[in-house]
């Protein structure tokens, strides 16, 4: 019953943050809400017994990819106008929403960790079993995923080069 409540809280946060991310007109605001949504999904992963997936979700999506997005968008706003915009970002009405949502998640996570039993559901997926699955039966899938990344890389290189050539 308890885990169900926790699950519903985290999912509400995820849904709420995602809807807000979609409706924001400012890209930075949207991205911050998207990060909160990813954090909420990580909490759900943790709750259903996949701590490794939860960690990956934070490290890769929220940590690496989203922060990269935020960096790139901030880099594009250089100059006087950008400074003004950045100052605007520090206004409370911008960060209050994501902060409250993250706080809910943090409280939930702290509570989860402090309960001695750990994740309530039986049997959690360890990093070792993930690795064994990936490099056992699904090894070809891993290789194909690398091909997928290659095609994304080559494609974006080609499409991006037209702007590099013009010296933007």
């Amino acid at each position: 019953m308890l885990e169900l409540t926790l699950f519903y809280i985290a999912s509400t946060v995820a849904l709420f943050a995602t809807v807000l991310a979609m409706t924001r007109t400012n890209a930075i605001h949207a991205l911050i809400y998207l990060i909160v949504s990813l954090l909420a999904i990580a909490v759900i992963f943790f709750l259903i017994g996949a701590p490794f997936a939860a960690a990956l979700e934070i490290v890769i999506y929220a940590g690496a990819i989203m922060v990269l997005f935020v960096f790139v968008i901030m880099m594009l706003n250089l100059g006087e106008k950008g400074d003004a915009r950045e100052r605007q970002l520090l206004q409370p009405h911008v960060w209050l929403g994501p902060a409250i949502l993250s706080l809910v998640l943090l409280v939930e996570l702290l509570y989860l960790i402090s309960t001695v039993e750990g994740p309530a559901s039986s049997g959690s997926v360890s990093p070792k079993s993930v690795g064994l699955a990936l490099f056992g039966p699904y090894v070809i899938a891993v290789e194909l995923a690398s091909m997928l990344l290659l095609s994304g890389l080559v494609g974006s290189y080609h499409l991006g080069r037209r702007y590099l050539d013009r010296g933007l």
Partner: protein
Amino acid sequence: MKVIDFYSLAPILGLSVTIIVVMIQASIKRNHKLAWWISFLGVTATLWSTHLATSYPQQVTPLFLINPSGLWFSSLITVGALVTLILSTDDENTGFKVTEEYYLLLLLSTLGAVVLILASHMASLLLGMELLGISLYAMIAFPEKDPNPLEGAIKYLVLSAAASAMLLFGFALIYAATGDLSYTGIGAKLSSAGIKNPLLVVAGTSMLLASIGFKLSLAPFHMWTPDVYQGAPTPVTNFLATVSKGAMLVALSRFTIDGQLHQYPTFMLCLSVLAIISMLVGNWLALRQQQIKRLLAYSSIAHFGYLLVALVALRQLQESDEIFYSSLEAINFYLTAYIITSLAAFTVIANIGGENDPDMRSFAGLFWRKPVQASTLTVAMLSFAGIPLTAGFLGKFYLITLALNTNLWLLLITLVFGSAIAIYYYLRVIYTMLITSSSDNNYEVPLISSPMWRDALAIILMISVILLGTWPQPFIDFMRHL
């Protein structure tokens, strides 16, 4: 993995090795002629390796089921890639500067198609589809100067990403219901899961069907097709029409059969509705098209509607095993005929117009200017329309017989009605080519120089279409052994 597994995976490995070699070559010294030759040799070797792998049909890891019919389609897809490769040799033909990346993307896309065909697991299905799709976005947007390809690519990217998300969601729901991701596992557990969680199963399969329907451009999900067909460079359109769609249909049929989806009346009803709408909408909208690529886009919607009839026929599988083989044979024949005919048609379009074939009027009087190309296009159009002595006729014959045997009257009537409409616009193309003195000569596009191999390729494809229609016995025998 054992050594024998590597033999079975030979087509996938062949393409992957070619991709790596082209990439290393491009990073050492850029030379697009050399890259073309490496890709050409690699694809040819892959074609041979599909033959090699037929001696080792087996399940390789949970991800792939290597079987003769899958390998036959892989080789067909590889031929499609080969023709695309030949069509995109020079800048003049494609209207853009071809670089090494183009060949790399083409190879990656072909790899995705082969993976999609041989997949027996949701993970490999998704990986194959994404590999195919992501490389295609970049290929569609490859020309640098033109805004049209970019427009087409963005439309395809946005809609296709939505379709992929839907597919993933569908997988998640099906996995939640059955706890299995392999086709056969789903097939075994779906019926009991359907009783326990009917909503999950229905939502999951319909999302899956919608996503695959998008990739096949079946009727309610067809909006992207004409713009992408028109915007993409002709060789890429050729690739999209043959390789991408063909692979997706094979994947759908394998999933339907292995996942035993044919025993659910609701699923079959959805397929029939999609088929009927596709046949009507595709043929209806093709009627008024002035641009040949748009015309072929709409006609492809109709053709995949026809192909679904063969899948719907599987619903009577419980009653007799015969249906299974005749349905499979119909799919095999029709798809083979469709792919070869499309290759012929797009080869001619690429040879005639290069990149600038905005209008059907540029084909006026083609018979008197370029007889070989014109007769190839004529044969292709007749085959699309299903006129006797061409491959398309036998394909349609198979479908009609199958629909008669399985009492699919409504589908049969729509099929015949659709084909009747289709004859009009296919014949219009032929008629345009016969016009001698067009009053508005300013539409005559400057013909690009035609080396020998252009005519040779067109002739080879024309002969294959006719051979498949006039002397199909060897091919039918071959199919029975698949």
